[in-house]
């Protein structure tokens, strides 16, 4: 023990210190407690009690040399106490790992274990046997430590509904026997894909949703990027770097995507001087790293495309030839009609609107219900001065979208046509 503080000012300093430790360590402590106790709810209660005990004891006894180990140990004993009180101890004793509760204290703080616990928590929260909404909610609650209210506001649902979703997910983890473990090598690629998917959904919820509180939305983007950094630290994998790069590069354009009046500003007209070049640099380094891997995944390829845009000083400098090539690779890695549409739009930039239109017309069957398909066609017709066809396509796009800014954008384009 060190730093023994006296008097109220000392206590205030210790309290502030504990708050910092909470911010930095609480998720690590929680992850380890879940492993030791085998139960999310019990571990959360134990975590709160451990910090409660710290607030009581540390101002007089001083901050321990290894606060995290202290908190894990305190939390574990609080949980055992509680189990004894509930007289469920005997019944549960068999179920809990012997060495996790008996006297010979395990080594809670050996570094690889602690880091593995955080990775275990990520894989458990993003387990594909849970509904995707539950994966999102659990990830934001347990790994990012957002409150139930914050998450509910981000997804525009009531806190009660969200709380129930989380409870149901935790019950399924317990009752269906979803393990708290890092998947075996054989399952790892597939499971990692589902973790990356969850992180990108969190990001997109913040980046693309056009309703809801701006602050909360930025918070979701920041959390997704933070998760990306964390995952990359825990599990260095090219596709993790690719996803992180993609998020950084997209988020770098945030300030320029909407005008002050809330209108959509297309890439072509964004003020590139306002892009976040610090984030762009980080993103570019990561893309480069990820592109050297043997198997290039779809997040990496999307990041490489975003990197092409980020590197162009002005719209006219964009290397469309390279972008079309990257879309070709993306189509091989994960074929989808939307990727085909984006490739067609890039071809239009490379070879002219007529060439792009020809490609897009072939997608009619697959994308007839997608508003951006009609909007992209309309754009090309407009550039070819075929205003009547452009009008029909803009109107089809309008009929298919409910988002305010999108509708205003399409109306504006319509009003600019000479028909």
């Amino acid at each position: 023990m060190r730093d023994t503080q006296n008097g109220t000012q000392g206590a205030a300093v210790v309290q502030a210190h504990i708050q910092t430790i909470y911010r930095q360590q609480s998720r690590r402590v929680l992850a380890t407690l879940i492993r030791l106790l085998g139960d999310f709810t019990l571990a959360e209660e134990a975590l709160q009690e451990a910090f409660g005990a710290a607030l009581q004891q540390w101002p007089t006894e001083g901050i321990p040399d290894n606060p995290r180990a202290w908190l894990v140990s305190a939390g574990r004993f609080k949980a055992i106490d509680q189990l004894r009180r509930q007289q469920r101890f005997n019944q549960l004793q068999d179920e809990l790992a012997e060495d996790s509760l008996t006297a010979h204290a395990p080594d809670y703080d050996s570094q690889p274990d602690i880091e593995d616990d955080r990775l275990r928590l990520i894989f458990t929260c993003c387990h594909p046997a849970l509904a995707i909404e539950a994966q999102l909610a659990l990830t934001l609650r347990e790994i990012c430590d957002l409150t139930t209210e914050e998450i509910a506001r981000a997804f525009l649902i009531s806190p009660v509904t969200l709380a129930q979703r989380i409870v149901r997910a935790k019950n399924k983890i317990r009752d269906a026997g979803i393990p708290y473990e890092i998947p075996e090598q054989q399952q790892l690629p597939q499971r990692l894909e589902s973790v990356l998917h969850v992180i990108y959904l969190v990001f997109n919820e913040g980046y693309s949703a056009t309703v809801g509180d701006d602050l909360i939305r930025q918070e979701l983007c920041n959390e997704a990027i933070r998760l990306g950094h964390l995952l990359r630290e825990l599990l260095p994998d090219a596709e993790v770097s690719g996803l992180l790069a993609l998020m950084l590069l997209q988020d770098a354009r945030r300030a320029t995507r909407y005008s002050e009046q809330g209108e959509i500003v297309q890439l072509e007209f964004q003020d590139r001087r306002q892009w976040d070049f610090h984030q762009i640099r980080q993103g570019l380094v990561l893309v480069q790293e990820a592109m050297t891997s043997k198997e290039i995944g779809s997040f990496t390829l999307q990041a490489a495309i975003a990197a092409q845009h980020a590197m162009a000083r002005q719209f006219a400098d964009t290397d469309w030839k390279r972008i079309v090539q990257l879309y070709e690779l993306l189509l091989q890695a994960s074929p989808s009609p939307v990727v085909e549409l984006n490739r067609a739009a890039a071809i239009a930039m490379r070879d002219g609107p007529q060439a792009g239109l020809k490609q897009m017309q072939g997608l009619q069957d697959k994308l007839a219900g997608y508003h951006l398909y009609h909007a992209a066609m309309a754009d090309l017709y407009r550039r070819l001065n075929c205003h009547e066809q452009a009008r029909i396509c803009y109107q089809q796009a309008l009929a298919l979208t409910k988002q305010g800014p999108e509708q205003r954008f399409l109306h504006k384009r319509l009003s600019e046509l000479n028909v």
Partner: protein
Amino acid sequence: MKYVCLVYYDEQIIRDMSEQQWLDLNKECIAFGEQVRGSGHCIGGNALQMTDTASTVRIRAGQLQLSDGPFAETKEQLAGFYLMEAKDLNEAIQLAGRIPPARLGSIEIRPVRELPK
């Protein structure tokens, strides 16, 4: 933990099979059954006759009611079940993925509930 793996498929797929395809599928199921019983994972289970052999019983107001057919009309029908012993859901998922009709239909994995003593 114990899990029941419920095997569902559209019976029409089976009816449309050639004799040889049906025999091959059965052979595959027998081989899989031997593997998982041998490894100690499978502790019970059976294939079922088609749903046109099913009867459904209910007691209502103390009276036994019987109807022809399965309890619910569904797109895929219950075709068999395995009682598996697995260390956790991940292992159960791996086992279920090896059940041959998983290619034709779906396998529902349900943890067994121990009734209170």
